[in-house]
């Protein structure tokens, strides 16, 4: 792992979550392979990785849904696991699936889970009212949730997770399949919660969300934590390299070989439709890159130059595009 932030091995009194050496296997597949990270009070931590990287499995262990084959999870100083009860009072889980009851109204869904979290009486009623307003369902609180749009269901799904004001809010890809307006509303809600001091564990495969929301980010691929740090710390792993993306057809394999021989080029990765070329100074090298690729038999349809971002970090670390 390319570690850019030191001091994460031991927990401190500020740590809400400490995951240490987590391993989980499904038959011959090792879905999570020795992952460790921690989240401090009021911190938003992102797990960034493509689909199938192991993010949901990590979430399942952190929330005590499944047991780890090795390693430990500690929430608010208490050991988490499938049979644990006390540490679960501190977490609010927002699963990737819409974990709501279609035959219950929005208010009933919130009330049910609020009661299960231990709320009751006026505290429960007051909190349900607050959350309904927060997720923008005031006018639809008495409607059955099966009648809601996808975005409204997503917001209710999130509302249930934060109803009891958990110490740690766990959001597993909360914006998948959501329209842009609802997505923005969800991101704003998470930002607000972070401001209020809630620790957030946020998994996503959207680079923009991780960059916008997260104080620190763990880049995960194939069950391994590839790197961890703030956005700027991670970007520095690319040594300031730019990314030139060549989109086209023709002989991409020959173009790859030619481009790798150019002095300015650090790395070339590609797929059937595009080549991702990591270079020291893109504006100075792009003309030579285009000429060389064309000469090697690639028919270019588009050329993009991007400054270093989490996408290029992921590419740099794994040799794959984030959304492959």
């Amino acid at each position, binding site marked *: 792992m390319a570690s850019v932030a030191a001091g994460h091995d031991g927990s401190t009194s500020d740590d809400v979550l400490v995951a240490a050496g987590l391993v989980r296997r*499904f038959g011959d597949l090792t879905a999570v392979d020795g992952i460790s990270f921690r989240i401090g009070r009021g911190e938003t931590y992102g797990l960034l990785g493509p689909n199938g990287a192991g993010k949901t499995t990590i979430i*399942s262990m952190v*929330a*005590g*849904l499944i047991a780890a084959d090795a390693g430990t999870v500690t929430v608010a100083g208490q050991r988490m696991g*499938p*049979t644990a*009860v*006390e540490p*679960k*009072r501190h*977490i609010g*889980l927002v*699963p*990737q*699936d*819409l*974990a*709501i*009851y279609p*035959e*219950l109204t929005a208010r*009933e869904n919130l009330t*049910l*889970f609020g*009661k*299960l*979290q*231990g709320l009751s009486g006026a505290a429960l009623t007051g909190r349900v009212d607050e959350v309904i307003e927060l997720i923008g369902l005031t006018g639809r609180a008495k409607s*059955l949730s099966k009648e809601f749009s996808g975005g409204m269901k997503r917001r209710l799904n999130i509302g*249930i997770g934060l109803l009891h004001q958990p110490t740690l809010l766990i959001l597993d890809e909360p914006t998948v399949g959501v329209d842009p307006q609802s997505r923005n509303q969800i991101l704003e809600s998470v930002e607000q919660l972070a401001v209020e001091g809630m620790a957030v564990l946020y998994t996503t495969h959207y680079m923009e969300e991780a960059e916008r929301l997260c104080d620190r980010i763990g880049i995960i691929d194939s069950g391994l934590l590839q790197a961890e740090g703030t956005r700027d710390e991670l970007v520095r792993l690319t040594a300031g390299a730019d990314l030139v993306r060549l989109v086209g057809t023709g002989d991409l394999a020959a173009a790859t070989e030619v481009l790798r021989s150019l002095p300015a080029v650090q790395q070339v990765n590609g797929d059937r439709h595009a080549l991702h070329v990591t270079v020291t100074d893109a504006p100075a090298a792009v003309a030579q890159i285009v000429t060389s690729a064309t000469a090697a038999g690639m028919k270019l349809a588009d050329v993009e130059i991007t400054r270093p971002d989490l996408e290029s970090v992921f590419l740099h670390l794994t040799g794959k595009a984030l959304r492959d």
Partner: protein
Amino acid sequence: MRQLWTMTQYDLRQRIRDKSVIIFAIIVPLALMFVLDLVMGDLTNPELEPTTVAASVPVDDQLATALVDAVRALDGNGGLAITVQPAPAQAVHDLARAGTVQVGLLVPDGFGAALQQGRAAEVTIVSGEGTGIEQTIVASVVESAVERFSAAALAAAAGGASGLAPAELAAIGQEVATAAPTLSLSEGVASVEQLSSTGALVAGQAGLFLLFTVGFGVTALVTEREQGTLGRLRSMPMPAWTIVTAKALVSFILGIVATTILLAVGGWFFEVGFGSPLAVAVLIVAAVTAATSLMFVIARVARTVEQANIAQSIIALVLGIAGGAFFPITASGWIGSVLDLNPVSAFTRGLGITAGGGGLAGLGTPLLTLLAFAAVVLVVARLIPDRGAGQ
């Protein structure tokens, strides 16, 4: 406990809103009871039609007249309405063929004399159009009367050969013809574990659909696994067993309510009394416990709602049919012993006991069978690997 009740309460609310439980646990079985009663009721409780018998009898033949009187005496017995209409011999066949009468009876001239002399005499029964069991009854009575008259004549002839006086011979003949039979056949009294056919239908259908009703709990559990709410429930601060227990409690409550309604409505409509309400209530609780235990097995083997529905249907139909939910099944030996372990059989048998006036004390065997069934099934469920655990 508070969380257990909260989950149960909200789950029941969803089941009621969903309406499928009302349809499949109450409306469908009641409708099926009515349909099955219409289809099978005629087989078990035949309706006897009014019957007219055209009788041709020789004038001044006392035995022939007595024969017709025996037929006439059937009127009003066991719901049979018999009218005997005198007719000339040549008209009997025509009347029967035309449907004017249902049965024709032709007693030949010299019938009485032939019997008294020990000679053969032939009585003809003519069946009309569309006649059924009524014609068979009339024929049986005629046959029986003829045999008695023959026996009396033979006894008198034997007495004559023995040198008895004519007055004594007449007395012997009279006695043989009119004496009560030394062998008698009477309608059996149903045993205390035997319900009437309609009662068995109501009890059997209630037992069968109980197995479907408790399935709503298991399908809810599998649905929650599929839709993700199970994961959210497992992230709540409560022991994992409360989730499954809440589903079992939902099944249990639905089973109790649905079975009580089915027995009450079915019993009222079909005029079947099941006896002591307390004993019936205890029996229902035991039957629902046995049925609910099956839910745990299905929850372990089914990964999807479809699989759960298929497994539940197979189990319910096999146990229901073997338990006599549609028609009585009788078997002896070890097969009979196995069938007796069926919860539907035990439930029906128990209702037979209560319907026959039995109380709690008489329900020992059915209650023990039902509770033992539940215990064994729960152990089996515990031993089966949970195929949905990794989801």
